[in-house]
Structure formats: structure tokens, C-alpha cells
């Protein structure tokens, strides 16, 4: 059941949960389930793991809601819990998959959607393959979640400076990987930037769907 007041902030909903409202927590689940699932799936590459970890994170958040300080933002707190659940998971199962990111129904032109999805999927698969857990998390929280460095630092329990260093190293690594792999070229209209998706990550069936880039 969804709350009728969508204008309530996450922090207010968390405060109501602390007071015993399960409905308030369910609203938080509605707001964050897709975000957490995407974050976990992008890193693990497994639907089952992503489901389990998303569920684990929400249960941990519900159990520990009394520790949340409503004076602070809810998102970094929740991502921090999720990240720790992922760390525990990776201790048992290291990252080793190139499964593409899950798809989403979109009413636009299928070729445009496919091209966008290709870029999105490939860049994060490359990140998953190349970056450390911390680098990946920092990069995801910055570019996908649009969190400011201060909140990323809180979510990762690191200093702002450390997060900036992580982001810098993550970008440098990704850049090296992108420049090293020249097998596929996808002209994608990102401000005139062409994106070459990594060979190993590109499904054979979609090769003909996007024009090749000719410098």
C-alpha cells in the first residue's frame, strides 16, 4: 500500500518508521527498490544475487532504523547498508560475469532505445570488469545516483578526499580500458563522442543495429 503523501521526504518517512509505521517504510521501499536493485545488479551481474541483496539491505535497514539519524539524508544511509551487504556477498562470491544489464520497456523507437541501452550497459559492464568494489560504488553513486561527494563519502564511510581519489582512479582506469579496446565503434551522439563498446561485452546479435564509427 502506497502513502497518499508523496511530498513526504525520505527522512520524514524514516522518522515515521522509527515511530512504528510499516506503511512509511513500505513507501521507502517503493522509492528505493529499483535504485538498489540496479546498483546491486550492475555490480553482481546476477538477477538472483541482486534480488537477495536488495531484500537483505531493506531488511537490515528496517531492523536498524532506530540507528538512522533523521537529521541526515536517508539515501546515503541506505546505500551504505546495501554496500556492506554487497561486501559480505563478495567475500563469498567474487565478481565474474559479463551478463548484460536487465532491460526496460520503453515506448520510443526501438533502435534508439537499443543504442542507448547498449552504451549504458557496456560502460557499466566495463566498469564492473575493470574497477574495484570501492571504485565501482563511488562511480555508480556519482553518475547513476547523482549523489554529491559528501553523501557518497557518508554512504561509503570514507572521507570526501578519499572519494575524490577513488573517482579519479576509476575514471583513469576506465579511460585506459576504453582506449585499449578498439574493436567496436558505436557512433552515439554523446556530444559528438563516439563510444567503442568493448569487444567481449558486445552481443553478436546487435552488431548491425548501430552504425560503425569512422573517424
Amino acid at each position, binding site marked *: 500500500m502506497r502513502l497518499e503523501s508523496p511530498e513526504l521526504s525520505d527522512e520524514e518517512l524514516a522518522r515515521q518508521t522509527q515511530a512504528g509505521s510499516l506503511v512509511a517504510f513500505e513507501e521507502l521501499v517503493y522509492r528505493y527498490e529499483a535504485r538498489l*536493485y540496479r546498483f546491486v545488479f550492475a555490480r553482481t551481474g546476477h*538477477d538472483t544475487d541482486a534480488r537477495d541483496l536488495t531484500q537483505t539491505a531493506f531488511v537490515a535497514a*528496517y*531492523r536498524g532504523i*532506530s540507528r538512522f539519524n533523521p537529521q541526515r539524508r536517508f539515501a546515503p544511509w541506505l546505500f551504505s547498508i546495501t554496500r556492506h551487504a554487497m561486501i559480505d556477498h563478495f567475500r563469498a562470491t567474487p565478481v565474474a560475469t559479463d551478463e548484460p544489464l*536487465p532491460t*526496460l520497456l520503453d515506448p520510443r523507437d526501438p533502435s534508439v*532505445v537499443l543504442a*542507448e541501452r547498449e552504451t549504458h550497459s557496456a560502460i557499466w559492464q566495463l566498469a564492473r570488469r575493470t574497477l574495484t568494489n570501492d571504485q565501482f560504488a563511488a562511480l555508480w553513486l556519482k553518475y547513476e545516483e547523482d549523489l554529491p561527494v559528501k553523501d557518497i563519502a557518508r554512504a561509503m564511510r570514507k572521507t570526501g578526499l578519499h572519494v575524490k581519489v577513488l573517482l579519479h582512479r576509476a575514471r583513469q582506469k576506465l579511460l585506459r580500458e576504453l582506449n585499449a579496446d578498439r574493436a567496436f565503434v558505436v557512433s552515439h551522439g554523446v556530444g559528438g563522442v563516439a563510444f567503442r563498446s568493448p569487444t567481449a561485452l558486445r552481443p553478436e546479435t546487435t552488431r548491425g543495429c548501430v552504425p560503425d564509427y569512422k573517424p
Partner: protein
Amino acid sequence: MNRYSTDDLEQLLSKSRQAPRASPPVDLHGDIMRAVRQAQPEPQRPVVIRNLGWALASAAILALAVVIVLPPRQQPHEPVALSVEEPLNTARTLAQQLRTSAPLQDEATSLADDARTAADFLLANLPSI
């Protein structure tokens, strides 16, 4: 051959935010809420207890730092009588050893004389043996 610059990568990553977002499985919400309903939230600890915990932890860390950082306090000087007693005891021990070794030395000297006499005798009578 074109190479990507940092700006290119920045644009790619920023653009990926606008790309179609993956949707979670439809039954995920139900699974989460079922698990949440079975979980019990931890009781909220009063602020005083929370602060007390922090205060105790801080005090423990401070005490540890004091033990580690501060130099150990020096022991007070021993009484003078004790410091004199030690050489006296050493002197007594040495005297005792001397008393014990003196008769032994006399005996050794006597044995050496006997040995020398026996040797002289042997040397003198060697041709006739």
C-alpha cells in the same frame, strides 16, 4: 586513431544516467515486504544510553592513549642500607671462597713437590732402568 579524453568519458557517464533504466523484477517488492514483515526492528535506545556508550568508548580510548603515550613513572630510590648490603655480601662470599681454596692450594703445592721429586729420581736412575 581517435582516443577518448577525460571529457569524453565524463560525457559518456553522464549520458548513461539519462539512458533507459533497468526495471526490477515485478515481484521484488512483494518479496521485500514479506521479509520485512517477518523482521523486528531493533528497539530504539534512549539518547542517554547511546551517549553513554560513546562516552565509555571515548574514555577507554583516552585511557589507552595515556598508557601508551605517557612515559612510565620512575621507581623511588632504594634505601642506602640496601645498596651497601650488596657489596658486603659479595665480600663475604669472596672471603669464604678464599678460606676454602687456601688448604687446597697447599695440598696442590705439596703434590707438585712430590711429582717433581719423583721426576728427579726417575731421571737420575734412567740409565739403570
